[in-house]
């Protein structure tokens, strides 16, 4: 078969499918949503589940893995914070069927709240991590990750970054391995139950396993060392997509060490360190490789000594400057008008935000979704955005300390994801809040994945009204396309209620309507 053009996300999905993956679970998040989208559209019979959040997605995969099934879990980097609880404990319990966790980091924060580095979280959990540099490697590493996961009995993290996820390059498939769909369940309480007496033993076993992880890393074909036998002057250590930036500028005069696995192959790195007089480390995210060397030698350069900036993505431009190559782009065009991203024309969300702005509440706590666009002009309505579900939790804190009726705004998918627990607190404590749920009947920002309220073949709608009714919180549903005067009255009346009150602005996402028609 000839090569085809695939994005890194697509390559991971196909790698998993060709490795005999039996189940895929995910919560959408840029830049990783397209991994499960690809599984969904693959035309294979691999079952996929859009879970309510990343924690549940990971637990779904862990459960399947215990039953000896190969499972693919995908999420954005920040989603791993939500899934951290089961993830970190799963390295204690271990896995049976291969469990691969593909995480999309977002250096430069094109669509994210932070640029945390998932390699560090893999090492924190004491498990193995693979970092591809292009689509071909994403495909191969996804396949290798399943094998490694089963041989180590550990979940394996595949660390992607936005430019890999959404970068498209040629991929050559290799022969498929059929899925092993035979469920084999052999409960093993000493491994699967992390009560303290078991966990103490499991931690010891995990620590003992670390030598195996290190040995695999030393032997891995994903790490490659090329020593320049004629000159010891300079060496470059590079990983992931940053390796390609370095490779673009590599002239053969420097020695080159490509890193693709973690824990790091420290013997190989030590040899490289001894061989080269000066070393430049090029990596995406935190100076993880560099830190492991810098304390050994002052001849290491990278982000710690200021050769490269500590924030934002690596580029070939930065590598050129780090290598002191000629670099003189034309002057930038200065004084150009800024262009803020905005709501799609006619979006119901913008109507609700305009009404909220006219209401003039002292503080509006926002959340994660399309509606974060209401931060920008002309709406400029949202005062805080921290993380999924934080709108209600933080409004609670403000209300508890005496701020007059804070407003929390979040979308339908975000409400299900992380808004349910703080809503329980709001009702239980009868906190004086107005909660505005923007219900567009989809997960819009990430491309229109279904929410738990969506009905469909084989799934039942979890109704927002029934959930709120069960909580015993008063609510009112309105159509945001009503005239401004009516909207103002709805908001005023809701705001005058004592205790928690929920307004639901309901109108289908226009982009989804368009997508369905085309």
């Amino acid at each position: 078969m000839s090569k085809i053009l695939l994005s890194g996300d697509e390559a991971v999905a196909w790698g998993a499918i060709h490795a005999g993956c039996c189940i895929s679970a995910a919560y959408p998040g840029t830049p990783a949503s397209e991994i499960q989208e690809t599984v969904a559209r693959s035309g294979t019979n691999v079952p996929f589940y859009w879970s309510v959040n990343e924690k549940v997605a990971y637990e779904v995969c862990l459960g399947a893995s215990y039953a000896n099934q190969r499972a693919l879990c995908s999420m954005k980097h920040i989603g791993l914070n939500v899934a951290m609880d089961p993830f970190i404990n799963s390295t204690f319990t271990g896995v049976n069927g291969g469990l691969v966790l593909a995480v999309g980091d977002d250096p430069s924060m094109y669509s994210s709240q932070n640029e945390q580095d998932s390699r560090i979280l893999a090492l924190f959990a004491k498990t193995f991590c693979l970092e591809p540099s292009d689509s071909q490697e994403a495909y191969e590493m996804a396949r290798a990750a399943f094998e490694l996961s089963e041989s180590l009995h550990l979940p394996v993290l595949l660390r992607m970054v936005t430019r890999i996820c959404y970068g498209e390059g040629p991929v050559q498939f290799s022969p498929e391995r059929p899925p092993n769909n035979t469920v084999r369940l052999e409960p093993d309480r000493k491994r699967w139950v992390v009560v303290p007496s078991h966990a103490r033993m499991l931690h010891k076993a995990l620590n003992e396993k670390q030598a195996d992880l290190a040995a695999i890393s030393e032997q891995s074909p994903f790490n490659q060392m090329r020593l320049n036998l004629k000159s010891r002057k300079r060496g470059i250590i590079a990983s992931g997509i940053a390796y390609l930036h370095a490779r673009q500028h590599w002239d053969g005069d420097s020695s080159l060490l490509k890193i693709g696995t973690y824990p790091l192959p420290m013997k190989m790195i030590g040899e490289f360190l001894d061989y080269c007089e000066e070393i430049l480390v090029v990596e995406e995210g935190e100076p993880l490789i560099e830190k492991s060397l810098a304390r050994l030698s002052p001849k290491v350069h990278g982000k710690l000594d200021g050769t490269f900036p500590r924030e934002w993505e690596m580029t070939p431009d930065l590598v050129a400057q780090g290598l002191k190559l000629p670099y003189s782009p034309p002057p930038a065009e200065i004084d150009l008008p800024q262009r803020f991203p905005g709501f799609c024309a006619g979006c119901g969300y913008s109507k609700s935000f305009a009404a909220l702005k006219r209401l003039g509440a002292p503080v509006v706590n926002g959340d994660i979704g399309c509606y974060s666009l209401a931060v920008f002009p002309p709406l400029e309505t949202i005062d805080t955005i921290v993380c999924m579900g934080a709108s209600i939790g933080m409004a609670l804190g403000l209300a508890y300390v005496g701020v007059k009726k804070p407003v929390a705004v979040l979308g339908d998918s975000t409400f299900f994801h992380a808004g349910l627990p703080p809503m329980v607190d709001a009702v239980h404590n009868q906190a004086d809040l107005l909660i505005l749920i923007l219900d567009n009947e989809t997960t819009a920002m990430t491309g229109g994945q279904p929410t738990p309220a969506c009905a469909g073949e084989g799934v039942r709608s979890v109704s927002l009204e029934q959930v709120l009714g069960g909580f015993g919180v008063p609510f009112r549903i309105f159509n945001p396309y009503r005239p401004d005067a009516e909207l103002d009255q709805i908001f005023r009346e809701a705001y005058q209620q004592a205790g928690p009150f929920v307004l639901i602005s309901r109108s289908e996402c226009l982009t989804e309507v368009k997508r369905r028609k085309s």
Partner: protein
Amino acid sequence: MNKVDIVIAGVGGQGNLLLAKLIAEAALLAGLEAKRSEIKGLAQRGGPVQSLVKIGEQVWSPLVERGQADLLLGLELVEALRNVQFLSSTGHAIVSRNFVPTPLPFSQPEMLARAQQRGFILISALDLAKQAGNAQSTNIVILGAASHFFPFGPELFQEALRKNVKRFLEENLKAFQLGREILPTP
């Protein structure tokens, strides 16, 4: 060498990503390697959209270095100007006269004047797209005009169009031709 580094600049909804895909597929049909890179998500909601395509015998980094782009394809004036740093001293900027207003009061004549100062090749892409029968095809008009600057013939772009475009195919093929005819073969 056969190396062509391309930066495509526009705003959401202008067919930026399709343009990048067509170039990458045409390069693949020519037996070259191609990589492309784009940003989705929040950035796409009416904000600036930038696609990068690199083709050649061997492509390493998918990112175009500033000062190294052989082609800057602009679907909108302000966004083309915003990406001018990528253009190499021997490169060509092929830019639509299209102007999408911004929240601040900048005018199209001012942007056109700045584009001319930069030596952009300005194309009335919207007029040509309408002439071809589909106002949405401005991206394909720009592709046609740019097609002179690739190490392979226009037939590969046409083949990529046939493979990837289902709606308004005839209009798009015409838009490509009109774009190509607007510039002399270099």
